[in-house]
């Protein structure tokens, strides 16, 4: 027995029914560790997707959208509808569409003057076939100024083989997506043929293989120097279909996209709009993670509530005798509440240790190969704030779970028990 008699009594209570105490602790441990595992995994997934998105999608993408409005006709212009005459043209064919951005150099020059912009990269994008021996795959080829483009997209950080800068050194160099290279069975240094929809062909030298982690990009995309694509398509040096923009703060990208779209009269998407479907799954995953994890901790809380209730039912006699001997309601409250707080504390501490160990093990498990995403291991992030949150929530839950039974014990009438 030591100084504080209430805490000594609590300690003896906890130790005299070890099995119950351990089960209650395990309840909290399980809740806390699973919470940590789930949050670390879900946030790891979110972070991976966000990183893949942000490195493969420019902050702002300016392009010329194919016109879908055929209500105006050149016949209308020529014959002039008025009150006496009605001109109707059935089933028009689209006029010769321009996919490129007119006056692209002036637009780029103008965007560069905006102080919120870090880098602007002109891109010429085309649908092509990739040929290697008999293998033929369709995909997209992006002609870029690699010095500008590596500032806009994190290509340099996503190279699995070779180097993005190699493009500057070889005019016929090409960077291939990892999935595309694998499907064609192409390795570094091989030559790959590219055929346009117009039937023109050009051969490129593989100088790098990149992997953004998203199948949609890695399985279809290749990057070459812009001049090569201009030649391939038979266009001039100012022929550009897209402009990629990097901004100082991605939170501003939506605003700036609207500004650019209105100013230059072309379509402009920010990264969030371009990846709306992925971002929607991020929200769904966050909600699910927190609902499931909090449910786990609440269930652990109910376990403690039950055990404390049972203990107090069994100890009503002891409580009565303590009260007769001079312990007041507050003392009784402390005796029982401190028991659940100790259960919560030990459970939470063991829980974060186990949670860390589980997370570490999962983070070493190879991720199954798939077409959607490419990952080496399960994505887990280790972040202090989840551990802090789990401990705080675990202790709060056990405190609340212990509070109600303890209050009942403190209010129990010793007379009713002693007289029987």
């Amino acid at each position: 027995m030591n100084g504080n008699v209430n805490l000594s009594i609590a300690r003896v209570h906890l130790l005299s029914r070890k099995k119950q105490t351990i089960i209650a602790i395990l309840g909290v441990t399980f809740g806390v560790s699973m919470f940590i595992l789930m949050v670390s995994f879900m946030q790891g997934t979110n972070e991976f997707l966000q990183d893949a998105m942000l490195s493969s999608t420019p902050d702002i993408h300016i392009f010329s959208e194919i016109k879908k409005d055929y209500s105006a006709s050149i016949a209308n212009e020529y014959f002039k509808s008025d009150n006496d005459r009605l001109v109707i043209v059935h089933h028009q064919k689209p006029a010769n569409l321009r996919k490129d951005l007119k006056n692209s150099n002036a637009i780029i020059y103008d965007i560069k003057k905006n102080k919120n912009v870090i880098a602007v990269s002109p891109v010429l994008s085309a649908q092509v076939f990739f040929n290697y021996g008999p293998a033929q795959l369709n995909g997209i080829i992006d002609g870029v100024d690699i010095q500008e483009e590596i500032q806009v997209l994190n290509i340099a950080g996503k190279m699995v083989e070779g180097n993005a800068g190699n493009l500057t050194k070889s005019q016929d160099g090409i960077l291939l997506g990892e999935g595309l290279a694998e499907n064609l069975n192409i390795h570094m240094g091989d030559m790959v043929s590219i055929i346009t929809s117009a039937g023109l062909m050009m051969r490129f030298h593989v100088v790098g293989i990149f992997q953004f982690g998203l199948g949609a990009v890695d399985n279809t995309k290749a990057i070459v120097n812009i001049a090569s694509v201009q030649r391939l398509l038979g266009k001039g040096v100012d022929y550009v279909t897209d402009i990629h923009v990097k901004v100082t703060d991605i939170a501003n990208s939506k605003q700036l996209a609207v500004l650019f779209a209105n100013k230059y009269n072309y379509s402009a998407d920010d990264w969030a709009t371009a990846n709306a479907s992925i971002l929607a799954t991020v929200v769904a995953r966050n909600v699910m993670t927190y609902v499931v994890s909090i449910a786990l901790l609440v269930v652990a809380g109910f376990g403690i509530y039950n055990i404390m209730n049972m203990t107090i039912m069994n100890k009503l006699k002891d409580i009565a005798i303590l009260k007769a001997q001079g312990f007041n309601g507050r003392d009784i409250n402390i005796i029982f509440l401190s028991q659940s707080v100790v259960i919560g504390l030990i459970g939470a501490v063991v829980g974060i240790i186990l949670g860390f160990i589980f997370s570490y093990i999962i983070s070493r498990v190879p991720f199954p190969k798939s077409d959607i995403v490419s990952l080496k291991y399960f994505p887990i992030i280790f972040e202090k704030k989840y551990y802090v949150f789990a401990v705080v929530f675990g202790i709060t839950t056990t405190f609340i779970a212990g509070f109600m039974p303890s209050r009942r014990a403190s209010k129990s009438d010793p007379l009713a028990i002693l007289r029987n």
Partner: protein
Amino acid sequence: MPEILKADSINKFFHEPSDFHVLKNISLSIHKGEFVSIVGKSGSGKSTLMYVLATLDTDYTGSIIINNNNVTDLNQNELASFRNKHIGFIFQSHYLLPEFTVLENVMIPALKLNKKKIIDIEKDAREKLRQMEMESFAKHLASKLSGGQQQRVAIARAMINDPDIIMADEPTGNLDSENSSIILNIFRSLTIKGNTIIAITHDEDFAGKSDRKIVMVDGAIQA
């Protein structure tokens, strides 16, 4: 001898299941060093009277003064510390805390009072146990003792804070005649040393050996 407890016109009603006048205008006074037994048939109100006098039951009218303290006006928390300091309890079913050792059971009320160092409290507790010839069981778990042994430990516990009054509710009710006479002898020797004891009992023999017998009939003290 000075007066240690004085009760004045105590009235108490039970309202459940129907209105019942359980204590009828009871006045009594008990002196220091007295060994008083309260006897009566069950339902006569003797337990109710004792729990009122012991401050555990506060639902009464009238006034109780213990050792010059008017306890009628105290709130529940004040009463708890008052009991801790001034009243020792012995119950029929001994009510030791089963997970604690004999020594710890005896020490707990003194630890609650928190007036002495732990080392002195332990010395006191061992001394009280020695008086009850229970010192050799000090480190045993309370639940491992026989009924008579437990009751002797309960007496040691009641004595630990040197209370003004010891209240005993049927202290020999669950004991055989041999253990009963041991307990009775202990009570006698305690009162000789100046302790005051109020005990409820069914045992005529026990009551006969007390200093004074208060007979309860239908909620009133029989003259």
